[in-house]
């Protein structure tokens, strides 16, 4: 008995020592980073914190994080912003909520980041109070769920591009323009799938556009066989079916749709439905499948692409897709806001809390900003930036643009 007691107290002592050591490291680290007052002749670095799913279930779209990181490196290679270089930290959130929370705390307190570029819907929701009321740090999230987009309620949270709900609406508007009368939604049972489709259904938006929503079908996130759901679709025979899901399940849906005889050209995917993997897996069966594209096609001719190509000459570009472009544009917006703040303060950096507040205000004030032609002009007052998207269709094994930009009414 006595031995166990000793063991417990020994455990506690070790915990104490460890926490002291770690605390020591933490405070030592914090004194060397951040954006505090000027030290000698060299200008301070501006810390920007980024995390994404470098490894984990949705790492196929992590170009969004690499793109932002690379943009700051690109600016650094050009001499920085007003002579200030960026310290852009890219970390792995692993799509695990606890890990992402640790990273937020680390970036906001130890690294003293001026802006944080975070990842998942779950963590954005969990940190909403801390971001807006405690730390007060501009937080550009990769989520597109409208729950957290509210400039009044959550003044420090920014997203970029159409919310999932807006994406559904954009696709439906396009369908309407093609004379569609009946449409259906197909989605996974995770929040990502359920919440946006349910929101649009509750709003009765489809009916307001003179179309009928014949079904809103859910399936398990990790389903391997979707034939029963697709048989229901076949029976209801809608003109178009919107899929609120990402690459892996889209493949399963199109595969089973071909099995039961529903053609791929009835299906429209969201922003996460553009991937060469779909074509590789399905071959001809993918022909006709459509997905949304909010950014210009990778490799086409526009100024931001030229910058990326220039950057790519001396650096390795991890992901060459529209998700990378999204990250790159996020970097441009953050840089633009910081540039404005430095100008406002006559070339000096304000102290951290003030810096963060001014960057937030500057982000919100961005108006008609041209992101190097990567997408339409951005006005950030609504914290979403823009509301236009294109549709791509797989034709002969290649994503091809169809029609022009679709605008969702704000």
């Amino acid at each position, binding site marked *: *008995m006595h031995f*166990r*007691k000793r*063991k*417990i*107290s*020994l*455990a*506690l*002592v*070790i*915990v*104490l020592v*460890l*926490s002291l050591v*770690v*605390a020591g490291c*933490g*405070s030592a680290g*914090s004194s060397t980073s951040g954006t505090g007052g000027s030290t000698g002749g060299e200008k301070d670095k501006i810390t920007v914190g980024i995390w994404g799913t*470098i*490894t984990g279930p949705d790492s196929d779209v992590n170009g969004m994080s690499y793109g932002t990181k690379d943009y700051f490196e690109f600016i650094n290679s050009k001499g920085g912003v007003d002579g200030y270089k960026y310290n852009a930290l*890219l*970390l*792995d959130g*692993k799509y695990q*909520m*606890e*890990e992402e*929370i*640790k990273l937020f*705390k*680390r970036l*906001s*307190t*130890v690294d003293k980041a001026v802006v944080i570029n975070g990842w998942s819907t*779950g963590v954005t*929701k*969990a940190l909403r*109070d801390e971001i807006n009321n*405690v730390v007060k740090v501009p937080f550009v999230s990769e989520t597109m769920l409208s*729950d957290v987009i509210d400039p009044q309620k959550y003044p420090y949270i920014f997203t970029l591009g159409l919310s999932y709900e807006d994406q559904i609406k954009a696709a439906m508007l396009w369908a309407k323009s093609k004379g569609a009368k009946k449409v259906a939604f197909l989605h996974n*049972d*995770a*929040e990502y799938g*359920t*919440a946006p489709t349910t929101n649009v259904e509750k709003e009765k938006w489809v009916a307001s556009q003179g179309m009928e929503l014949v079904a809103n079908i859910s399936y398990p996130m990790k389903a391997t066989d979707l034939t029963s759901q697709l048989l229901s679709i076949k029976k209801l025979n809608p003109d178009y079916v919107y899929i609120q899901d990402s690459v892996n399940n889209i493949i399963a849906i199109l595969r089973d749709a071909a099995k039961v005889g529903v053609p791929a050209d009835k299906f429209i995917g969201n922003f996460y439905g553009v991937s060469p993997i779909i074509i590789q897996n399905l071959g001809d069966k993918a022909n006709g499948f459509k997905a949304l594209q909010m950014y210009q096609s990778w490799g086409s001719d526009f100024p931001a692409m030229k910058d990326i190509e220039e950057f790519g000459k001396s650096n390795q570009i*991890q992901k060459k897709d529209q998700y990378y472009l999204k990250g790159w544009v996020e970097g441009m917006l953050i840089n633009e806001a910081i540039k404005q703040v430095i100008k406002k303060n006559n070339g000096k950096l304000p102290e951290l809390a003030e810096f963060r507040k001014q960057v937030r205000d500057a982000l919100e004030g961005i108006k008609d900003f041209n992101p190097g032609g990567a997408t339409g002009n951005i006005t950030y007052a609504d914290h979403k930036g823009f509301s236009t998207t294109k549709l791509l269709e797989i034709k002969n094994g290649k994503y091809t643009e169809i029609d022009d930009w679709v605008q969702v009414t704000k």
Partner: protein
Amino acid sequence: MVNKKSLVKWAVIAAILATVPLYSGNYILSLVNLAAIAVTGAVGLNILTGYTGQISLGHAAFMGVGAYVAGYLMTNYHLPFLLAVLIGGIASAIAGIIFGSPSLRLKGLYLAMATLASQILLEYVFKNWRSVTGGVSGMYIESPSILGFSFGTDQRFYYLAMGFALIAIWTASNLFKTKTGRAFIAIRDRDIAAEIIGISSFKYKLISFAISSFYAGVAGSLLALYLTLVVPESFVLSVSIQYVAMVIIGGPGTIAGAIYGAIFVTLLPQGIEYITNILAQFYPMEALFAALRDMTFGLLIILFLLFEPKGLSDIIPRIGRWFKGLFLKKGGESRNLSHIQ
């Protein structure tokens, strides 16, 4: 004399623990808070797995039951959070009794399967009983507060998390001085022999499930209060496996083991990241090193099972003794020399 000495020791420990938030930043405190919550949960699982010998792959789901019940009571009935946490714990204990009942007939791998089923079943309930759980979107809860004093910051939450962890450690270590605690150990060591000496194996297994789940429920409620959000993804199977790993790595059947294991598993990603960041300066292959992290985690569990089945709770005192031995050896030699002279 001994009492006085130990009193002083505990007073010093308490004083140091009480002052941790004064010299630690938010990041460190968030790590400590998450570790303290994990300690509460791991001590609970250790009662079931380490002391009673019943494996459970549903620990995260039981945490979820506590979190959802506490969250529901706080948001809909505005119950004080301490009461809500307590009721959350009790609800988990009841769930533990229900899902632990197959332990009468099942052992080892089969019991693991049965508890795995409870994990999957409860996860399904969390996701689909939308009117109560909020479905996959989960439910928001307010930061805990007592009489207007809010625990919404890391500094303040530290006292809450650490307080609960200390109570969990203290109650668990005293549990094994009681008849019930000893009955658990008897069942673990040989259940038939325990039955022969008059211990109702079924009754005590269920009690063990109930107590363990109570701890899980409290830990889950604390996690929900810390995140101010209850979502199904906080209580998935991989979290259950992490808790089993805490018990294995820490050392099953020791309270100290649960503490070491919980801290080790919580801080492991940060430790590995620290090392990979250093390595990445020499070999810039971020993605590769990131993948290395998960491999290290798996590898550690295998290595512990193979070479150190008693876990950290055996290794750390051994290192302590080794250091002690170094000094004693020197002292011993000098004594010998003096003898020769």
